[in-house]
């Protein structure tokens, strides 16, 4: 029997010194590797795009809600007495009240009401300015 080390070294010599192995369809394989790279590279971008869309949607909803809340609480829905008192007031710098809205008004109705009140306030301002002259 051969020396034990020779057995292994002889065997290794038979199977080593070989060329690098290759896949059968090399070009197709390289294409598929590159496709895989493409998917990986675009995946984070696609995920990011999804997040941007979601954030935009949330921001739009929040903006509409904030505008509604601004008009609703900023100008107050006061009872008719206070509103009447305010409308009789000569202090034109005070924030106008919105007598034409109530708790069920939509943002669009609040906005329309605000425009109407501001218009009236401007007319009133002009009237008092004329009086001063």
């Amino acid at each position, binding site marked *: 029997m051969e020396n034990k080390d020779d057995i292994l070294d002889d*065997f290794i010599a*038979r*199977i080593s010194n070989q*060329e690098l*192995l*290759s896949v059968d369809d090399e070009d197709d394989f390289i294409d598929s*590797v590159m496709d895989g*790279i493409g998917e*990986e590279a675009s995946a984070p971008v696609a995920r990011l795009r999804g997040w941007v869309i979601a954030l935009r949607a949330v921001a739009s909803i929040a903006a509409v809600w904030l505008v509604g809340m601004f008009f609703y609480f900023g100008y107050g829905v006061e009872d008719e007495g206070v509103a009447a008192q305010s409308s009789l007031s000569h202090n034109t710098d005070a924030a106008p009240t919105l007598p034409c809205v109530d708790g069920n008004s939509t943002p669009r109705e609040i906005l329309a009401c605000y425009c109407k009140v501001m218009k009236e306030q401007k007319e009133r301002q002009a009237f008092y300015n004329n009086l001063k002259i």
Partner: protein
Amino acid sequence: MDNISDIIGKCRSGDRQAFRLLVKNFHRLVFTIALKMLASEDLAKDIVQETFIRVWQNLDSYDDSRKFSTWICTIASRLCIDELDKQKRTAPMPDDERFLAELVDADTQHQLENKEWARLVNVMAQDLSPKQQLVFTLVQLQEMESTEVQEITGMDADRIKKNLYVARQTIRERLIRLGYGK
């Protein structure tokens, strides 16, 4: 042709054609190691794919002072070890053992095909741990230098020596059991 650092520079700036060149130049090396580790063409192809994805994603962290082939072999080797850790080894088929015996009896050396390598590894690596198999593959089958093997495996020279010793003993015993050297 551009040298490797030029190609890597282009890849870093997102040049896909340059990366294709990188794949073309190095996929055989990765495939060879993966096939000799995993004994499966399909798994070896998956490892090549995964290795190049990691290379693409981590090119910025590649240290230019290192040999690129060593870096890519390190990635591939770790993926192979992970794959071997996941797998349960199946006993070699009698056909595989017969193939090894025929190979041993053959007078001349011939270029082994992928399937033949798969059979051979199935028989040889049966009783080896993934790390022993990696060291044996790099040192004996790929004939890499000791420093390169240390870099790839992350083992010091002493541990490599021990793993290689056990791997050689194990394979030798298997060869003798299969009748080699009689």
